[in-house]
């Protein structure tokens, strides 16, 4: 047990190496979630409100992609970003930016699918009002997204949780480089492969503790917002 508590002690004592790993994990996953949200929210609302040929197919594919295997996303992103791939000239492979891109691909279907469902439910509720008032389509999207804002926070958390928990994409496109692209999950994988299971478990406990804290904070913020909004 000594090592398990030692991981927590390292964190509490502000160990710079562990702190950097935790910080990189959070920054990468937050950025990936934000990037996916920028695309996923409008995309989800669009799918909820606009009928076009192939819409059902797209919805089914997006739903299925909520379960995209991270290792496949990582591999595809790797082949794209590799120097021998089409985007190799960007020189992004083995960098935090590459990790953000790969994770946002992973998270995008979750945000888009759940947003579509939420907005579609709201739309059936407000359909008559918005149609009677002849609200323009763009305004409909923003109105409904605004009305769904508290649900969207939960959706963001689901996406963030997926990003922060996965190891497949960040391992492949980040390379698990010490002090540069090592995250909580790749560090746990590394310590496991070194046979240092207590330290790996300790890091796992740290990661879970951080996730609980973030979710608790988000829940509190959401509650406060709901109370203020009545």
């Amino acid at each position: 047990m000594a090592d398990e508590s030692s991981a927590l002690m390292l964190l509490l004592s502000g160990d710079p190496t562990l702190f950097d790993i935790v910080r990189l994990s959070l920054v990468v996953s937050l950025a990936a979630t934000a990037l996916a949200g920028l695309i996923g929210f409008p995309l989800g609302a669009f799918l909820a409100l606009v009928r076009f040929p192939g819409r059902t197919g797209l919805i089914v594919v997006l739903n299925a992609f909520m379960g995209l295997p991270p290792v496949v996303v990582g591999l595809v992103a790797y082949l794209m970003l590799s120097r021998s791939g089409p985007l190799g000239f960007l020189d992004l492979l083995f960098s935090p930016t590459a990790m953000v891109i790969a994770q946002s691909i992973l998270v995008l279907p979750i945000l888009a699918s759940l947003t579509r469902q939420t907005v579609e439910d709201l739309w059936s509720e407000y359909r008559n009002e918005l149609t009677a008032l002849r609200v323009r389509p763009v305004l409909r999207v923003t109105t409904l997204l605004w009305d769904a804002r508290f649900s969207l926070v939960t959706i963001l958390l689901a996406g963030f949780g997926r990003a922060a928990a996965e190891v497949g994409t960040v391992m492949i496109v980040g390379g698990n480089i010490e002090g540069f692209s090592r995250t909580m999950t790749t560090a746990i994988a590394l310590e496991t492969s070194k046979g240092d299971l207590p330290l790996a478990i300790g890091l796992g406990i740290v990661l879970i503790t951080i996730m609980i804290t973030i979710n608790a904070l988000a829940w509190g913020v959401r509650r406060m917002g709901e109370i203020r909004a009545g």
Partner: protein
Amino acid sequence: MLSRRFLIAAILVATFAAPVPAQDKSIVVASTTSTQDSGLFGHILPMFKAKTGIDVKVVAQGTGQALDTARRGDADVVFVHAKAQEEKFIADGFGVKRYPVMYNDFVLIGPKDDPAGIKGTKDVTAAFRTIKDKGVSFVSRGDKSGTHTAELNLWKAAGIDIAQDKGAWYKEIGQGMGAALNTAASMNGYVLADRGTWLAFKNRGDLEILVEGDRRLFNQYGIILVNPAQHPHVKADLGQAFIDWVVSPEGQQAIADYKIGGQQLFFPNATSGAP
């Protein structure tokens, strides 16, 4: 408002995170799990950085995958241990020149109670034949790494066509050295490991070294600059600076000085006519 604030905060974080300074002095070295898991890089890289200011980013993979990463142009230097594969890499035009760096040896690990009864033999191929004949669990890396290559060569030397003769006792896990040792520890199996990773490995369970000292267990490491003629973006100057340091007396001494529990893990031999 809240979700928007959350978004804005997240975007701000993203903008701070995104730019990676491109002008930094750094190289990517594709290397093996043995050099990383044994802790060697953690020991020598800070010294190199202090002397030259060059950051060395190590991507630890099996030798086969490391060479493949370099072949794609995603690394500046490879630091691996499978001579035949390294020579092919250079013959194919992907590498400039191979420098021998250091050696250690492979050891055959197995459970203390040794159901195959091979403990103490000096003939590793005889031990391999016994393992196969008795059908005791053997964990193979199965990942084209340097250690996997060495294992396959030993089966061949033992007169066994492992592709034909493998049964349920032969478990190819397709993972790194640490994962193979974890697997062997949990199923009390036999496994071929490099001594460095074994010495640094903490989850030994009932495993111990059963066979060592056979000259066929010799494990040579080499370092190669990726050919800028193939991949013009390769940082040839910085990469060569790293190679020059590793094979210099100073780098060789740094390697020799790395010890775990008083035991030296790697033996530098860049200058002594190494293979």
